[in-house]
C-alpha cells in the first residue's frame, strides 16, 4: 500500500480520582480504510493498551490539597517503567475526577501535568465526560453497539458514581451522584472512623445515625448506611420520582430516561465487589482499603437485582475511566488543511456555534450572525483562536456551499485581519468543497482548517493536534469546561 496509509500514535490517559491515581499508555493504529483514490476515510482501527500503571492512592498533602509534586513523580516513574520519554507521547488526556475535581487546586495540578506529559496532552474534567469515558473504557459503549441494547454504565468510585447510558455505541444520557466507597475512611482493616466526607454525613443524617471521627463502627451500624447509598444509586435509574436524599446527592440534573434500562454495567473501584461471588462478612474485610467500598459493591449488586436490573460484566472495572480517557478522548478528523506546520497544535480553541437553529439563507445573513456571536463572546478582544461549529450548509448544493463560504469570510473579516487561522467544524460531509470555496472567494492567504463529519455538540473547547497521515487528518480532542460545577 502507498506510504502514509497506516500509522500508530501513542496516547496517554491519566486519571486523578478521589481515591486513586492511575495511568495507561495505549498505542492507537490509524488507517485510511478507503481504498485507492476514494475519498480518504481515516479511522482508529486498533487500540492496544501497552502500559498499565500501578493503582496509586491519590497523593494528598492534606485533606483538600493534591500533592502536585507527588503526582508528577508518579507520571515520571510510570513513563520510565513503560520506557517512554514524554516527547514520544502524541496525544492523550488528564482527567481529574470525582471529589478531587471539586478541590480548588485541581487546575494548578492539571496545568503542571499538561506541561509534563508530552506535547499534546489535554486536561479535562467534568462529571458527565468522566461517566462517558468510563463507559467507553468498561466496554459498555461497545456492548450497546454490538448487541443493539441500551446499557447503563455506572462508574462507582471513591467519591462519586458517574452514570452514562449508551445506545448504539453513543452516550445518550449522563448524570452524577455524590456517592462512592471512600466517603468514610477507616483505619485499614480496622473499625475506627478517621474521616467522614460531607455526602456521607447527609446519608448518616437520613438514616438517623450519629457518628463522629474517632468512633468505632460495627458492621450492623455500617450496613444500613451503605444500603441507603446503594438504594440512591439504583433510584437514579428509575423513572419514578426520586427521594429527597437522592435529589440532594445528585451533582448534575437527573438522568433523562428516554430508553428502557434493563442492562447495567458497573465499573470503578467498587465494581470488583459487585461481581464477587460473595460479600464481605467482617468489618476487616470491608475496610481492607481503609473505606467501605467492598460493602457498597455487594449492597449495590443486591439492590440492582432486587429492582429487576440485569448486571452485565464489564471488560474493565477499576481501570475503566483511565482506559477510556487514554483511548477514547481522541477523534480523528480530516479534510482541508492549509496550515503552516508550526501553527499546530492549537489548544483551548473556543467553539462557537453562530447558527443554533437554522442557517441564514444569504451571505449577508450568515455574516451578520457570525459577527453578532463574535461580538457577544468578545472574540476580537481576546488572544485565542476560535472554531466555528455548524451542522452544514443549508443544502448540500454547490450554490449553498458557496454562500456559506462567502458568509463565513464576511463574518470573520475582522478576526482574519488579525492573522488568526480560520477553523471550521462541520457535521455534514462537505469539508473539502467548503475549504475549496473559501479559498476561491478570499484574496488573502489563509491558514485554514476545515474539519467535517464531526459533532461538537455540548463542547466548549477543542484541542487540535499536529496533522497525521501526510497531513490528511488532525487529532481533535473535545473538551467541556474544566470547572463547570
Amino acid at each position, binding site marked *: 500500500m502507498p*506510504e502514509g496509509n497506516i500509522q500508530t500514535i501513542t496516547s496517554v490517559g491519566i486519571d486523578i480520582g478521589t481515591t486513586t491515581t492511575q495511568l495507561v499508555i495505549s498505542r492507537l493504529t490509524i488507517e485510511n480504510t478507503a481504498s485507492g483514490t476514494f475519498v480518504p476515510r481515516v479511522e482508529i482501527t486498533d487500540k492496544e493498551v501497552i502500559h498499565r500503571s500501578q493503582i496509586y492512592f491519590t497523593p494528598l498533602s492534606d485533606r483538600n490539597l493534591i500533592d502536585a509534586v507527588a503526582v508528577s513523580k508518579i507520571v515520571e516513574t510510570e513513563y520510565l517503567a513503560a520506557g517512554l520519554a514524554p516527547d514520544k507521547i502524541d496525544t492523550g488526556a488528564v482527567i481529574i475526577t470525582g471529589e478531587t475535581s471539586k478541590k480548588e487546586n485541581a487546575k494548578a495540578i492539571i496545568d503542571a501535568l499538561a506541561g509534563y506529559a508530552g506535547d499534546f496532552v489535554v486536561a479535562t474534567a467534568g462529571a458527565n465526560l468522566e461517566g462517558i469515558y468510563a463507559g467507553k473504557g468498561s466496554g459498555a459503549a461497545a456492548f450497546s453497539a454490538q448487541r*443493539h441494547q441500551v446499557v447503563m454504565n455506572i462508574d462507582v468510585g471513591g467519591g462519586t458514581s458517574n452514570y452514562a447510558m449508551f445506545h448504539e455505541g453513543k452516550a445518550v444520557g449522563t448524570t452524577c451522584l455524590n456517592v462512592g466507597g471512600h466517603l468514610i475512611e477507616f483505619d485499614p482493616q480496622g473499625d475506627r472512623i478517621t474521616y467522614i466526607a460531607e455526602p456521607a454525613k447527609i446519608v448518616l443524617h437520613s438514616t438517623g445515625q450519629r457518628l463522629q471521627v474517632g468512633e468505632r463502627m460495627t458492621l450492623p451500624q455500617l450496613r444500613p448506611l451503605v444500603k441507603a447509598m446503594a438504594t440512591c444509586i439504583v433510584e437514579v435509574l428509575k423513572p419514578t420520582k426520586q427521594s429527597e436524599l437522592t435529589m440532594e446527592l445528585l451533582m448534575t440534573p437527573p438522568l433523562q430516561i428516554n430508553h428502557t434500562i434493563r442492562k447495567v454495567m458497573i465499573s470503578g473501584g467498587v465494581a470488583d465487589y459487585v461481581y464477587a461471588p460473595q460479600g464481605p462478612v467482617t468489618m476487616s474485610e470491608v475496610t481492607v482499603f481503609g473505606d467501605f467500598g467492598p460493602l457498597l459493591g455487594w449492597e449495590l449488586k443486591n439492590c440492582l437485582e432486587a429492582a429487576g436490573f440485569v448486571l452485565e460484566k464489564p471488560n474493565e472495572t477499576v481501570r475503566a475511566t483511565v482506559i477510556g480517557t487514554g483511548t477514547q478522548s481522541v477523534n480523528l478528523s480530516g479534510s482541508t488543511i492549509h496550515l503552516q506546520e508550526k501553527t499546530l497544535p492549537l489548544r483551548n480553541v473556543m467553539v462557537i456555534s453562530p447558527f443554533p437553529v437554522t442557517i441564514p439563507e444569504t451571505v449577508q445573513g450568515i455574516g451578520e450572525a457570525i459577527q453578532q456571536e463574535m461580538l457577544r463572546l468578545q472574540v476580537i478582544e481576546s488572544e485565542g483562536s476560535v472554531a466555528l461549529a455548524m451542522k452544514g450548509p443549508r443544502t448540500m448544493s454547490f450554490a449553498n456551499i458557496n454562500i456559506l463560504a462567502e458568509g463565513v469570510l464576511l463574518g470573520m473579516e475582522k478576526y482574519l485581519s488579525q492573522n488568526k487561522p480560520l477553523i471550521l467544524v462541520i457535521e455534514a*460531509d*462537505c469539508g473539502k468543497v467548503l475549504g*475549496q470555496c473559501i479559498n*476561491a472567494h478570499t484574496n488573502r492567504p489563509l491558514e485554514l482548517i476545515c474539519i467535517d463529519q464531526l459533532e461538537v455538540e455540548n463542547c466548549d473547547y477543542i484541542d487540535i493536534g499536529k496533522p497525521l497521515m501526510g497531513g490528511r487528518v488532525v487529532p481533535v480532542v473535545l473538551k467541556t469546561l474544566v470547572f463547570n460545577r
Partner: protein
Amino acid sequence: MAVANNELEKVIIQSVLEELAKKGLLSNKSKDHIMSTTMLDTPQFSNNSSEEMVTFPSLDEMQISKPFNADAVKAMKKSTPARIGIGRAGTRPKTLSWLRFLADHAVAQDAVFLDVSDEFLKQNDLMSVQSAVTSKEEFLTRPDLGRRLSEDAIKTVSDKCEKNVQVQILVVDGLSSTAIEANIPDLLPSLMQGLKSAGIKVGTPFFVKYGRVWAQDHVAALINCDVIVSLIGERPGLGTAESLSAYMIYRPDKKTVEADRTVVSNIHKGGIPPAEAGAHLADVVQQILTAKASGVKFNQQK
C-alpha cells in the same frame, strides 16, 4: 356535515356531488360549498386521471410485525440500503415490499431508457455530441459503437474544442441519465472551481450522448489533453439510480488497458455528495498530472 377523513370516502362524495351537479339537481355553487366543507377544495380525481402518483412510506420503516429486538433491526437497516427487515407474509414478501421492489425496478429502467433532456444541457451550458450509436437499442446492444464518436461528433469536437489543454471533462450519459441530471449541477462547478484555483488549464466540458467509458480515449486523441475525465452514469441498481462515476486517464493511447483508468465511484447524495466529490476529484486530477500516470501505475507511485 361531518368532515371526511378517508380518501375513499372523499372520492365517493366528490363523484356523487359531481353527478348531482351534472343532472342539475345541485347548483355548482352549493356543490363547491359542500366540497370545501368536506375538505375537498381541490378535486381528488377527474375521470382521466388514472395515473396517480403513489407515495410509499419511508424505507427505514420497520415492517417486521413482532420484532424481538427492534433496535437491532433499525441499526442493521441503517447500515445498508438493501431490503432487510421487511417482514414477510407466509413465504412471500408483503404487498408493500413487493410494490416497492417493482417501483424501484421501474426507476432503474427509466434511468437507462430516458435521455438527458435538452433543457438540462442548455441550463448547464453543455454542448452535445453523439457516439457512433444511432439509437437507444443500438446503444444497449453494441457497446463497441458507444466507445467512439460519430463522424459528425468528430468534426464538431475538432472544430469547436480547445486543443492541448491539461484537462478535458466529458459528461457521459452511460447507463443512467438520471445520475447525470441529479449530480452534474453540483459536481461539475465544484470540480471546475477546484481545477481553476489550482491554475490548471481546462477545456470547456461537453456532453456525449450514448457514450461509454472508452469514448474518452477517442476524445483525448482528438484534442490532445493530458488528463481526460468522464463523469458517467453508473448502471442503476435497485438501491439508487442516481449513482455516478468519474473515470480519469492520463494520455490514453492504443496500448491503454482498463487498469490504466482511475475511478471514483458512488457519487450521489447517499454516497459521496456531488459537491464534495468535485473538490475531491480536483485533488485527484492534480495528483495524476503530477504523477503523469493514472490507474494502477498511479496507485503504485503514491
